């Protein structure tokens, strides 16, 4: 059970020793990364609340649900944690918990199994990586769409326009905008499925 940490602790010292002559600053840095750990739940929370919330938002797309799920993850994950533990272990555990929580959410919300947390985001280890990754995915989908489809989805999802506003921007009737959006969504879903596989 202590294998993981003993191993990483064991690596730290020899690594520091061999590089000591080469560059003192580098060694200090490496040691800092190697030894990074959380002393208590408070530290775990402060350092990961942003990451977990952004991941949840990226997976459910709305704030009320993202907040509920973030709460669920921390409530479930923090109690059984034995601290201090390394940052890597804690994050792996938070991700595992997030996966379970999301699977339950989708089963509840849509009544079926949905791939809860795909690897792309799971590999994001800092909060700052989640935003760019999800933006990249969205733009990849949008870029593959015909112009009109891309425009309506951009107006509605990224700019938050109402149907009426989007219709006006595109110079079509509201009814036409709805149809356009619907078709665009279907195409986007096909493209997304293609990108996944």
């Amino acid at each position, binding site marked *: 059970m202590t294998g993981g940490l003993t191993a990483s602790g064991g690596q730290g010292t020899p690594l520091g020793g061999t590089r000591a002559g080469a560059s003192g600053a580098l060694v200090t840095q490496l040691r800092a990364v190697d*030894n990074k*750990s959380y002393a208590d739940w408070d530290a775990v929370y402060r350092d990961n609340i942003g990451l977990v*919330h952004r991941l949840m938002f990226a*997976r459910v*797309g709305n704030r009320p649900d993202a907040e509920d799920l973030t709460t669920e993850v921390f409530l479930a994950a923090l109690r059984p944690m*034995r601290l201090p533990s*390394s940052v890597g272990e804690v994050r792996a555990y938070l991700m595992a918990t997030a996966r379970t929580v999301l699977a339950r959410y989708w089963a509840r919300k849509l009544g079926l199994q949905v791939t809860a947390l795909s690897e792309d985001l799971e590999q994001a280890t800092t909060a700052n990586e989640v*935003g760019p990754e999800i933006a990249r995915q*969205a733009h990849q989908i949008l870029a593959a769409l015909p112009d009109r489809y891309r425009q309506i989805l951009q107006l509605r*999802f990224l700019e938050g326009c109402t149907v009426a506003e989007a219709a006006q921007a595109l110079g079509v009737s509201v009814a036409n905008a709805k149809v356009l959006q619907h078709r665009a969504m279907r195409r986007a879903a096909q493209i997304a499925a293609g990108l996944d596989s």
Partner: protein
Amino acid sequence: MTMRGINRYVESLISSRRPRRFRASEDDASLARTAVTLRAARPGSGEPDEEFVTALHKKLAAELDPPAPGQAAGARRTFLRAAAATGTVAAAGAAGAGIDHALGARTAAPDTITPSHGIWHTVAASTDLPDGAVRPFTAGALTGFVERAGGQLRAVSGICTHQGCRLALSGRPAHLVCPCHGATFALDGVVLTHKFPVPLATLPQIEVRETDSVVQVYAPTSDL
């Protein structure tokens, strides 16, 4: 019907509301997922709300911190606000730390229930428990299942180690299922499946013997 469900779902996301649940088809689900991706890409939308961060911290403190007079909630909150995104990370050093789940560790050997004031309760006639049979029983304060397999008797607690729901006998080969969250256990008490992010304890064993053509378990005296 599903058409309306998915449309409403998409409109909720666009207008930043909580989407309602609906029974989705496979197509709906992939559409919903795409809508989530597009919506999540709206600049700045994944940022946690500061009020939420503070409120959750308070809730967690209430759950996790033992009530100690020296630990003022106010001090913690200030600490939280002051903390940068990088956070405070203490030097580790301490070996022996770890997380059960992450490291795949399991709880120690199964316990046997040993009541301080126990007696042998008869739970079945020997003839009612042929080889391969399983019977539920209640004896004193204990609820469990007794099994004869390969000529050996074995009894385990029938209470789920997660939250204490009473297990049900099910399936072929027979196993125990928790009606609350669906955890399953083998008849020797070992956890078969569960969907919790933390390890689930093995079911405790109950002492069992066969004497004078009856099967008995050692359980608390019922009228203590």
